């Protein structure tokens, strides 16, 4: 079994790879974690992770610049039904479009738009930066066994934009920051976290473990 972490020039791949390797070990599995820019490996991987640091338009362009990568992602998700996880901007890229530095089309996996966060309380600073709790909406395998809610564990957020989903059911957890900020989305075998699980200590490592063992219906 392989977990492919897509390398398209975004930073932060080491942390993501190390976090996945650690949780592969802790869940007693033997998956190989590969950081790769090779579309063939992505198309054949058993799980795919799309990380992302930076601006939406820039990340989208970098992903498209790898010949065959979008097609490989499509094949893994649609033909092979593999679980897919986007992280931060990698999650935002799942949207229909993003409006950071001009409107840019996304992968249209979770229908909706990536928009600037506008906290109802103008005293709240943007970016939404730091540790926040999550409010789950219903049950989802990716959140199973994680202590959530106001008294629960924290996730590390670092963003000025978030995915506003057309279908409310696609949002499986939010964070409260002068209103609900989209924290985790899932649609079929495709999921994404706005926060950085690889930087979110116990909560993040728990979510990674859940992704590693996730069998989407």
């Amino acid at each position, binding site marked *: 079994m392989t977990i492919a972490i897509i390398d398209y020039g975004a930073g932060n791949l080491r942390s993501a790879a190390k976090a996945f390797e650690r949780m592969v070990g802790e869940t007693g599995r033997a998956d190989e974690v590969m950081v790769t820019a090779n579309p063939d490996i992505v198309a054949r991987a058993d799980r795919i992770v799309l990380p992302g640091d930076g601006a939406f338009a820039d990340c989208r362009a970098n992903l498209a610049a790898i010949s065959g990568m979008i097609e490989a992602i499509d094949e893994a998700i649609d033909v092979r039904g593999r679980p897919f996880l986007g992280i931060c901007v990698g999650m935002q890229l799942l949207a229909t479009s993003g409006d950071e530095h001009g409107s840019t089309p996304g992968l249209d996996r979770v229908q909706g738009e990536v928009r600037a966060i506008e906290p109802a309380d103008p005293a709240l600073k943007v*970016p939404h*930066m730091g540790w926040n709790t999550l409010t789950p909406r219903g049950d989802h395998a990716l959140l199973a066994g994680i202590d959530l809610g106001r008294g629960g564990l924290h996730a590390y957020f670092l963003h*000025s934009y978030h995915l506003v989903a057309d279908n409310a059911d696609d949002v499986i957890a939010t964070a409260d920051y002068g209103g609900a900020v989209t924290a985790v989305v899932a649609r079929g075998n495709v999921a994404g976290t706005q926060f950085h699980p690889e930087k979110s200590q116990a909560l993040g490592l728990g979510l990674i473990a859940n992704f590693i063992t996730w069998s989407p219906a």
Partner: protein
Amino acid sequence: MSLKVRLIPCLDVKDGRVVKGVRFLDLTDAGDPVEAAEAYDAAGADEICFLDITASHEERDILLDVVARTAEHVFIPVTVGGGVRTVDDVRALMLAGADKVAINTAAVKDRRIVRDASEKFGGQAIVVAIDAKRVNAPGEAPRWEIFTHGGRNPTGIDALAYAREVADLGAGEILLTSMDRDGTRDGFDLELTRAIADAVTIPVIASGGVGTLDHLVEGVKDGGASAVLAASIFHFGTFTIGEAKQHMAAAGVPVRLDGLGATGDEP
């Protein structure tokens, strides 16, 4: 609102080693920044800040190696500053595994690096480090100026105007150090912290002067800081991260206490 105030230990790094060492817990190598960062992660720190004070830019690979090894072992965010001169320097640190990069003198010299770097990497990753010193005469209205080179060189630039400018250019955060208070243990310059925090809509990290746990509380409650940074009180083992957070929580400051007991969130 359940976003927590961040507590950030800062490690000065020179030639790949922690300056003066870190005297807490049972580190096998008190001079290894990676081991210190791991210990702070385990102790409940919300972020780690590395400030590189290596004189020579040619030794950059040593810092990149420290950042890369830290990113492999630490599962909280890492901010790296010191000697960042170009967008390529920012890129190299980000690729090594830094989550945020702090720009100081280069932005004072040419503001364009703030705009260019935040367009390239997203503003959330770009921290502008401001070293400010009080310059008003006694009895005058308070006024602060930007200083470079560890507080030695005045620039004539007003700190408030500069903070607004870099925020408008896309910076995601300001790391604000009072050069009057840095190293004194007399507490933050709260007037400065409040003035800057009120002047910008991005988060401000208060830095410079922490000697007691009450200082951390004041930085948030009186200074309006979104995060507080300290070095010596943690490195020398005066207080643990856990003690600092429990103290902040008891004073009504919302902090993340995952694994440290109660949540610190308001009921």
